[in-house]
């Protein structure tokens, strides 16, 4: 058990290290930080709107960067190791294949977590900066200050942050799953992106499938069923939009989506491990 964990950690650390030593991730991070800082320059609107813009732009930046990290990281995972054949020197060791899969996933998730933490901290700072700016501009009247601070220090923003992280971790799980099937990095990136996009439509497909009855042709039914069964429902994470829009989202709903994400990742990794177990290298 302890040896197993040690091996998983070695794979994860190595994956993380590889990513950190690649310039592309640093460049992405810098790009994201510049965008986050620049998000502060919409000054023509009411402060509620300014905060909405800031938050939307902030979340979009973090989310997009996270998605790119996930996709690029996925390409680095198993297919690139097979292409470079470095995987041979790892898997001929007394290392179980599922340990390798889990280690790769954890390495990618660790990378993502570090980047999210950095971007989150900068985003927090930008919000505070905006707050100071607006209070200076609108005057220090207690009611106004309170209203501005309600926007900038909204604790629900961390709720949105957790949801965003969970969504990206599921994307990473998808990437790992596809990389155990594929031999090319392009395939993994394309499939992951495709499922990510379709995932936002899954709830529509699901409702259409379950509610349409006999109306649609059988092949349409089959397609809708496949989407509903095989693709995660990324619409569940649109709670993020609710939070940015300033609507109340209960913690219970948030936690349930987090649990859904964990379960999804577990299933994806288990299936990935099965597929990888019998694969010729």
């Amino acid at each position, binding site marked *: 058990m302890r040896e197993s964990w040690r091996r998983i950690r*070695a794979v994860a650390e190595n994956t993380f*290290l590889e990513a950190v030593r690649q310039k592309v991730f640093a460049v992405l991070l810098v790009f994201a930080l510049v965008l986050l800082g620049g998000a502060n320059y919409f000054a023509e609107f009411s402060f509620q709107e300014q905060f909405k813009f800031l938050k939307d732009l902030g979340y979009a930046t973090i989310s997009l960067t996270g998605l790119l990290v996930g996709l690029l990281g996925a390409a680095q995972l198993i297919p690139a190791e097979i292409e470079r054949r470095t995987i041979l*020197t790892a898997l001929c060791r007394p290392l179980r294949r599922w340990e390798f899969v889990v280690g790769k996933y954890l390495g990618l998730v660790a990378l993502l977590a570090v980047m999210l933490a950095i971007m989150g901290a900068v985003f927090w700072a930008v919000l505070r900066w905006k707050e100071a700016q607006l209070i200076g501009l609108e005057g220090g009247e207690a009611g106004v200050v309170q209203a501005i601070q309600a926007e900038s220090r909204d604790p629900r923003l961390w709720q949105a942050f957790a949801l965003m992280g969970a969504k990206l971790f599921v994307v990473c799980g998808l990437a790992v799953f596809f990389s155990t099937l594929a031999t090319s990095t392009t395939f993994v990136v394309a499939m992951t992106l495709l499922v990510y996009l379709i995932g936002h439509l899954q709830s529509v497909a699901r409702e259409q499938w379950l509610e349409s009855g006999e109306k649609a042709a059988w092949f349409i039914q089959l397609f809708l069923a496949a989407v509903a069964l095989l693709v995660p429902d990324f619409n569940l994470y649109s709670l993020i939009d609710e939070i940015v829009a300033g609507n109340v989202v209960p913690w219970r709903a948030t936690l349930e989506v987090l649990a859904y994400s964990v379960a999804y990742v577990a299933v994806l990794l288990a299936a990935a491990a099965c597929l990888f177990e019998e694969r010729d290298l």
Partner: protein
Amino acid sequence: MSAAVWTQSLRKEFTLGWGRGRVLAVEGLDLEIKRGEVFGLLGPNGSGKSTAMKMILGLLRPTAGRAEVCGNLAGTLAARKQIGFLPENPYFPAFLSGLELVRYYGKLCGLGGKALEGRVAELLSLVRLGGEAGRRPLRTYSKGMLQRAGLAGALVSDPEIVMLDEPTAGVDPAGSREIRDLIRELKERGKTVIFSSHLLEQVEDVADRVVILHRGQKLREGRLEDLLTMSGEWQVRARGLGEAQRRELHAWLVQHGAEVLGEGSPRERLEDYFLRNLPERERR
């Protein structure tokens, strides 16, 4: 005691996909490699050497047949614990340093802590990558250095068997000699060494036994001496014979009913010539 490696009727077919049929890479391979032996898998490119090795390592699943390592089914954790592997060409994560590479492989073998650090330092100095060289990234290494780093990585868990895939391919004569010396050293330490090569002449002086593969099948197997000794012929090398004595010798041979197949001054192998002409300190 069980053999180091034992295979029976080992067979591997690759499916090409999209209905393009199958390729037979190895067929009906029986091997028994004893412990402490230096064993060569020889044959031209595409003869199935690497496929056979990968099946023994558990990287490929045999289509049929069975392979065992020290009595354990190939591919199981117990089997892989017995083997250290140096792949053909330096397939290593280039972003690591030599030190990190060996440490990473140690961790993958379940090692850790002070024991691992000590072992890493010891191995790096064994392959002459101690100190500053070990801290440089692998992408700055020459091919020979990569081979040595890889070898240290293969040896980190102190395995019973060391497998080397084409260890001398693309390495200069000095590096090649070095690797042959290392194989001998490993044998002295009681390790079983299995290597593959398509450069037959480079291995003849280290292998105890070889198998020659051709199109996935075993062509010949045996001790190199037995395979290469042409028992129907006899060869004499001598110094100090003048032209007249040479003619006399030739006439004597013909007179005694021998068929003279060749005579003349022997030529040195280029590799030996090269090594002999290196400055003393660089020969090792």
